[in-house]
């Protein structure tokens, strides 16, 4: 066995033979988003060498894709970003004849993702979830009392609550496409509005609570919540549930809970797609097919606590996950979920500028 210097992420692929002539598949996925055992299993089954890198924001991925020559064979953008990237010509159509496991996909989710990718021609669903509120239950009750509104957007958008919560630490996502729709929902406006006059209404809401936000970040809150460094995070469902799991494992007395806001929660879909200039599209299809295997997909869900778009996998998903309405929402909650569509360039600039103004106070 030959040794070579590999990037950290690839080093996870233990047990693989590292001969340099071996065919490679390069996957670019979100951080903390897969059971790493699956990576070595893929290598064993296919004999391909898997290089697995991670990112933590759609913006980073999009910039790499639009620069061209990203070198990745499989990438995982969220629905709204995927839609725009398809328009930019960033992906190649999937060859479903190479994806026999696609029969496992779940119609309900396919219908929803077709909104971003008509006919699901370019992508398959990996995971989906909601954006909501993670709390350190004991600390929040200590600060706000027993009846703290931990399932309501008023917890994070009412300055009176936030002023008190600031003492134990609050993180928001650094993603205007998540935070602004939530603020609009709190106001009772259309969260998917593309009208700058409506979007502007979110600014005073967010600016009013900004002084009490310790940090805007897309992944640090997992550890910060689990360690008890912060008591509230507005973030992605599975990430907060991972924090809950880590706190349980550490037995540090931190109890984390996730709630999709009762006013309505953003539902998002992370889609696996193949860049138009992928060096190994054939290997990419093999990876997609491997992921769509019912058992493999279930293993990923059991590890990351996100719902997936794979109906056949539900047989193997842990009952505690399948029955958790925070992960697989029931009919009632499902009605309360909303989706968004990408902003046009002019509106995007307005949104980013507003976001910078909100974050920096200028």
């Amino acid at each position, binding site marked *: 066995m030959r040794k070579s210097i590999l990037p950290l992420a690839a080093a996870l692929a233990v047990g693989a033979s590292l001969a340099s002539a071996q065919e490679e598949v390069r996957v670019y996925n979100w951080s903390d988003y897969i059971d790493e055992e699956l990576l070595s299993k893929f290598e064993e089954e296919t004999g391909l060498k898997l290089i697995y890198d991670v990112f933590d924001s759609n913006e980073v991925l999009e910039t790499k894709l639009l620069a061209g020559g990203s070198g990745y064979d499989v990438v995982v953008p969220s629905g709204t970003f995927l839609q725009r990237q398809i328009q930019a010509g960033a992906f190649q159509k999937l060859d479903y004849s190479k994806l026999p496991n696609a029969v496992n996909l779940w119609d309900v989710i396919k219908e929803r993702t077709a909104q971003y990718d008509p006919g699901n021609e370019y992508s398959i669903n990996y995971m989906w979830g909601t954006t909501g509120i993670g709390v350190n239950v004991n600390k929040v009750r200590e600060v706000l009392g027993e009846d703290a509104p931990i399932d309501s957007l008023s917890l994070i958008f009412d300055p009176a609550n936030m002023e008190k919560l600031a003492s134990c630490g609050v993180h928001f996502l650094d993603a205007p496409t998540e935070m602004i729709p939530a603020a609009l929902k709190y106001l009772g406006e259309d969260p998917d509005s593309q009208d700058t006059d409506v979007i502007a209404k979110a600014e005073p809401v967010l600016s009013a609570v900004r002084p009490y936000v310790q940090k805007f970040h897309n992944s640090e809150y997992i550890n910060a919540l689990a360690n008890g460094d912060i008591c509230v995070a507005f973030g992605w469902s599975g990430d907060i549930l991972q924090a809950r799991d880590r706190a349980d494992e550490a037995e540090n007395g931190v109890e984390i809970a996730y709630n999709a806001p009762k006013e309505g929660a953003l539902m998002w879909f992370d889609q696996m797609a193949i860049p138009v200039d992928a060096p190994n599209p054939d290997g990419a299809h093999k990876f997609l097919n491997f992921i769509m295997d019912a058992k493999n997909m279930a293993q990923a869900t059991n590890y990351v606590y996100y719902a997936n778009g794979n109906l056949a996998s539900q047989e193997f998903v842990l009952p505690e996950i399948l029955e958790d309405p925070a992960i697989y929402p029931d009919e009632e909650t499902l009605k309360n979920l909303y989706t968004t569509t990408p902003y046009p*360039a002019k509106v995007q600039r307005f949104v980013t500028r507003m976001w910078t103004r909100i974050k920096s106070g200028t």
Partner: protein
Amino acid sequence: MNLRRALLIALPYAWLLALFLVPFGIVLKISLSDMALAIPPYVPTLDIAAGWTGLKEFFSQLDFENFVFLTEDDLYWRAYLSSLRIAALSTLITLIVGFPIAYGMSRASDAWRPTLMMLVILPFWTSFLIRVYSWMGILSQQGLLNQFLLWTGLISEPLTILNTNIAVYIGIVYTYLPFMILPIYASLEKLDDSLLEAAEDLGCSRLQAFWLVTVPLARAGVIAGCFLVFIPAIGEFVIPSVLGGSRTLMIGKVLWEEFFSNRDWPVASAVAVVLLLILVVPIILFQRNEQRQREQEQ
């Protein structure tokens, strides 16, 4: 022999051309383009196959719209000013901390100097990113610093340092300290002791001798050190994004947002071009001034 000399001179110029001017030209070109939803995300792109008409077409599509845009929004000027302030203050603190260390090193015995030198260089053996990350562990609410201070009883509530500008200053000073120490040390090491003895023989106190002899002779090192700290600190992105909070406004972060959140490469490039002008113009003026002074002295 002339050919050899020309070649020798050509080498650094070729280096500058390939690694500075050409990339700058590309950035400048993008800053004059318009954003588009495509790969790459701007138009026009140069189509060499179209020949002369293609070239003419290409140039006719470039304009200064993005630079005008920068003047219309105060965000950019505030970010530039805030970066200048953070970089200037960090440079000053680094100088105040670094000078005594360099001085101490240059006064140490010959046996100790290599060890001290090693200690200054040692942090470079660990990745810069890991060193900045480890400051998160030191400065956080439950971090080492707070635990220590709580233990000593100096404070009763943990201090909030992480995610503030103070953490940014700590990060920059820590990271760039060796770049200040090394040039100052290099200039102090060459200092001839007999000059100090002469000054004292002529009636200077030790302090006076330090101010009148050591400091002026270290000037070149101090200036070099300040440039080495100040210039990268202005455009610093990693330290403010890892250690800074939501209120830390620096041009590096603004640049990142333009590039990643807005996908607006043309405006991002315009921000970078202006940043370069802000940095390069004062440096050129300063060097001219220095050169003139030197000529006058001669």
